[in-house]
């Protein structure tokens, strides 16, 4: 048999593929598996092709009943090595999908970690050339969600979206992946990445479909507001599912976090006490974030802010002021210095809560200046070109 993929995951065993399959058949039989093979089968490729799917079907039985992880693992890889020996690519795709699905379909809750490890490694054997790897990836992600552990595989959202382009996955398939990614990252407590996956998911909905993802959109808005380190949310307003929320309280709240200031929030809170109390984030945390955001807005308009202004606008006690400014600088919202003697802070830069034309113009001006300065440096370097004045080296 030819081996299309043997270069990707080469295997070495001192016996023929048929003997390898027969040995495994013998083992599975001791665990109660039944096989459907003629009594006097011939030792040829056809027998192997008949036996292999049966081995895969019976494998979950062994998985449940065999006590040793190491033995299960080596039997699993034995199957993978046999699958790789198939001559047709679609045969390989079909059987590897079958194996992966068989492992996931097994409802035994023990050994989830082992399952997760095996499937991740199986996935690695095929990426990213075959489109069947989509199914394998879905299964890997399902197990990450179930185990809540990322010990065995590395998930990179950008890389996965590259693969999906290669597999020519349709929108539905992509949604499945991003939803799973969101669940997986939530399960392993990587909030920021979970949110990133959710935003990608929402991007996949067009104007007319926005309504379908309303509940996802709601979760997305609330998790952005609740995340202690995310301050910029204006990009959410462009997403169709979030536009579909227009008129609802969560949309109104998002608007406040994008454009409003502390007073807007307090007004909202007083009008909608019940709504805010039910959110996954407390009123105090919202206040903290709104104070920081209000400071960022103030910093955008002027380069120096007096302490008294802050006290008044942010409703803070004077002794709370310094820790607050330190927090703002520490979280990257503003860059600047506290000028204690004169009672003010000087701002050198700030994040932009909304990003529109003035910001692009600012970038343009800065780039022009930068380029001019570089030309000056280059020129003076040329002029100052140094040659050794006395004799040769």
């Amino acid at each position: 048999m030819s081996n299309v993929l043997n270069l990707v995951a080469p295997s070495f065993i001192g016996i023929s593929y048929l003997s390898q399959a027969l040995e495994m058949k013998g083992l599975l039989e001791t665990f109660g598996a039944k096989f459907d093979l003629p009594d006097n089968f011939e030792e040829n490729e056809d027998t192997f092709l008949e036996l292999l799917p049966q081995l895969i079907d019976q494998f979950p039985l062994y998985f449940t009943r065999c006590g040793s992880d190491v033995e299960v693992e080596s039997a699993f890889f034995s199957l993978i090595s046999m699958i790789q020996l198939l001559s047709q690519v679609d045969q390989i795709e079909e059987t590897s999908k079958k194996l992966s699905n068989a492992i996931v379909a097994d409802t035994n809750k023990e050994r989830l970690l082992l399952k997760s490890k095996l499937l991740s490694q199986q996935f690695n054997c095929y990426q990213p050339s075959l489109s069947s790897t989509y199914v394998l990836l879905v299964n890997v992600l399902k197990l990450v969600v179930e185990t809540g552990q990322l010990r065995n595989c590395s998930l990179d959202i950008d890389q996965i979206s590259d693969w999906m382009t290669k597999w020519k996955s349709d929108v539905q398939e992509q949604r499945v992946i991003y939803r799973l990614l969101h669940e997986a990252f939530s399960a392993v407590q990587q909030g920021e990445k979970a949110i990133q996956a959710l935003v990608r998911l929402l991007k996949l909905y067009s104007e007319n479909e926005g309504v379908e993802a309303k509940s996802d959109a709601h979760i997305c808005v609330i998790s952005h507001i609740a995340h202690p380190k995310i301050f910029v949310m204006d990009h959410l307003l462009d997403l169709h599912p979030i536009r579909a929320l227009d008129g609802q309280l969560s949309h109104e709240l998002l608007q406040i976090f994008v454009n409003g200031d502390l007073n807007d929030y307090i007004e909202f809170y007083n009008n909608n006490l019940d709504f805010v109390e039910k959110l996954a984030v407390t009123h105090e945390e919202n206040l903290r974030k709104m104070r920081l955001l209000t400071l960022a807005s103030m910093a955008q308009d002027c380069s120096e802010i007096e302490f008294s202004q802050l006290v008044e606008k942010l409703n803070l006690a004077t002794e709370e002021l310094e820790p607050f400014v330190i927090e703002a600088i520490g979280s990257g919202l503003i860059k600047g210095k506290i000028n204690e003697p004169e009672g003010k802070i000087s701002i050198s830069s700030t994040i932009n809560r909304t990003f529109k034309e003035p910001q692009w113009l600012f970038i343009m001006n800065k780039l022009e200046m930068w380029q001019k300065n570089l030309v000056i440096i280059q020129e003076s370097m040329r002029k100052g070109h140094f040659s050794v004045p006395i004799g040769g080296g």
Partner: protein
Amino acid sequence: MAVEGRSVALPVRKVIIHPVVLFNIVDNYERRNDNNKRVIGTLMGRYDKGTVYVTESFAVPHQETEEEVSMDMEYAMRIGELQKKVNTSMYTVGWYSSGIIINEYSSLIHAFYKCQCPTPVHLTVDTQLKEQKMKINTHISSQIGVKNGTEGCIFTPVSHTITGAEADQVSLKFFQGLRGNKKTPNFNDQEQIITSCSEMIAQINIVMGHVKKVLSGEAPSDKELGRQLMEVVQSIPNLDGDTITNMLNSHMQDLLAVEYLTYLTRQQLAISARINQIL
């Protein structure tokens, strides 16, 4: 890790390779004996929560014929120990081989490294350049076969990235510039700055082109991109042209003076050495 590590296999989900390792392998391949088809060696580095960092490597002599393979295990172990003395946080993490083919001999060599570290990584580098790009693969191995049956092993791929420190980039770029040039150019600080300046200017031009398009409405205004650009432009110092010229002039004069004085000292030393010789 290398000593007590025989018992438990650790999960490996990612390998990060330092470019120096790849240089080493290519160099090793270039200097191989004529009758050797491939070269092998030990990879050293560290292991951290499922990620293997490969930062160092050394070649191990070995011979392969049609019938058998032999490698100098004693040598591999001794050099490994010496490396560990130099840097105590470094462990054996696997081995490399030139060429992308993994054969039966590979599984034998891999078995040796399995005694050195729990989950050795096998790095293959296509030094023969069979394709346009130098193919680099990383594998880990697992046992295959059933209980009481024949045992074998399978190499399954793991994902890898090549990452170097920022400072490495400068020299890597320099090396790349040498491609095709037989003569080694002078490594001149000033020229370096001049060329980096022109590269920068060209790149800024590209960015400015895009920003212009955004401003005129030809390109979509991508907020994420904009924020990243904003971060870049905010990190450059706010200086006007005159200040820069002044700064450069004063620093330049200092620099020239220092360069001149070092040159003078060198000459003087050379002269006194000659005089001593004559006397």
